[in-house]
């Protein structure tokens, strides 16, 4: 029972010191605090890795809204992780233009070669989470993928081994 709390879910507040200062700068751009919610969640996710209930409560307190309100916003957008994800979070575009250019093969190759198994699941070594996403806005460079913040164009199943090696 002793190791139930994961290391990332400690109780240190995210918005303290330099990170709090960063948020204060962001707040100056808007006429009210609520408008800084998306930027605040981005900062929190960068610091913490994902948006837990505790993080939502902290963001709510800092911005003067309720935790339920924050949850409503977090669940609307696809890019905030509501669960911990692998070290490498890979988004593969599978919308029509990429579909006809072979995106399915890219997904299959990534799932097989990273050991993630299923789309949305994390590989047993904790290194990979592969998800299928809707249009990434680079249809002329099919298939585009995002590995964390790195946008990679024109990925084919043949190029997958090299990408997996690079980020492993």
């Amino acid at each position: 029972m002793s190791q139930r709390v994961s290391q990332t879910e400690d109780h240190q507040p995210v918005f303290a010191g330099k990170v709090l200062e960063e948020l204060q700068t962001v707040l100056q751009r808007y006429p009210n605090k609520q408008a800084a919610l998306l930027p605040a969640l981005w900062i929190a996710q960068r610091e913490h890795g994902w948006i837990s209930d505790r993080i939502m409560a902290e963001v709510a307190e800092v911005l003067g809204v309720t935790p339920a309100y924050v949850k409503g916003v977090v669940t609307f957008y696809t890019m905030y992780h509501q669960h911990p994800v692998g070290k490498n979070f890979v988004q593969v575009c599978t919308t029509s233009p990429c579909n006809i250019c072979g995106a399915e093969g890219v997904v299959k190759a990534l799932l097989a070669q990273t050991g993630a198994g299923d789309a949305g699941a994390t590989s047993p070594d904790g290194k990979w989470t592969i998800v299928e996403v809707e249009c990434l806005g680079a249809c002329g460079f099919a298939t585009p993928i995002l590995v964390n913040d790195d946008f990679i164009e024109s990925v084919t199943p043949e190029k997958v081994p090299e990408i997996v090696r690079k980020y492993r």
Partner: protein
Amino acid sequence: MGYPHKPHPKETVVLSQYFGDADARTIKGWTKRGGYEALSQALKMDPVAVTDVVKESGLRGRGGAGFPTGLKWSFMPKEKKKAHYLCVNADESEPGTFKDREIMRWTPHALLEGTAIAAHAIRAEIAYIYIRGEFTEPWMIMSRALEEANAAGVFGSIKIYLHRGAGAYICGEETALMNSLEGKRGNPRIKPPFPAAAGLFGLPTTINNVETLAAVPHIVKRGAAWYKGLCLSNPKSTGTKLFSVCGHVQRPGNYEVTMGFPLKALLYDMCGGPPAGRTLKACIPGGSSVPILTREETEACLLDYEGVVAQGSMLGSGGVIVFDDSADMVYQIMRLAKFYAHESCAQCTQCREGTAWTTKIMERILAGQGKTTDLDLLLDLSENMTGKTICVLSDSCAAPIVSGIKKFRGEFEAYLAGNRQPVLVG
């Protein structure tokens, strides 16, 4: 598309002139190329005069609706009593469209300059550029450019901020974008009130697309008459337009042509046509939300707002998706509906239920389990999804379904009759 950018001889290069030229990304390189001259010129002009130049040029919104830009600006209150805002829609997410990304990647200062001119014209103190969350590279390049421009003090009293989206197609809808910027769920708002009366934070707001604003400095600098002269067909459609071509063509990429350019020449001469041994079957000319064109319609289509309507579709965002004869149209239309089902904000019943059920019915047809009444059911659902919701996401899902059944009915019927190998959708 190879870089450095070698434009095809038939292209009219205005916005894409410096695509692939990394030096143009820096403020030094940009000013060396005549950048920010239009802004200093505009800042010396009366806002109404700037609006009039844009009105006279005939520039229309490049995000999809094609609304006259100068006219939109003139809707802002004449007497300024409250703060005014400018929103820049860089939430490019329409399947088939990837032009704004290219503008931000290669000519970030063009967008910043256009943004500042527009802010001056509508007398806005603050402009927010809303960039979709997935555009990590454009975000980085825009941030750097903004930092440089701020350090050089080129914007005068106008403040420009970047705001990052977090993954939601619907936030490209103007009022959904404003809600998102306010820290809310990206639900579109009921109109009226229109943004010029009550937009961002309830205050007068104008929202423009990236490509629209990138064209503004050219118009200010070279004059409305020059821009108006860029027209090959209908005088209501002026200037150049970036077309993003993707799918089954040999050379996909962004191509800039004068309004009224033939779609056939774009697809065959510039993009090299379908892969060897294949023939063109269908084409979606303006991003996934517009009706599908057959090969005949595609080859007769002129690329301007009126020309595409004449063929039964819309110019939209200029995202051209090409399907060759290997494409299974039933599967592709199902995949598009699936996109809309995923992206529906779920406010309106017709959209929330309609996008999901049309997808499921098409999955059933593909699996060989379709009923003979399914096509009528799809058309009936589509009718209930058109013109009955707060925004047009629902209509956008119905457009390819209705046009698809009309134009490729035989492919649907082949599945229904059991004449086609069933496809199981995962």
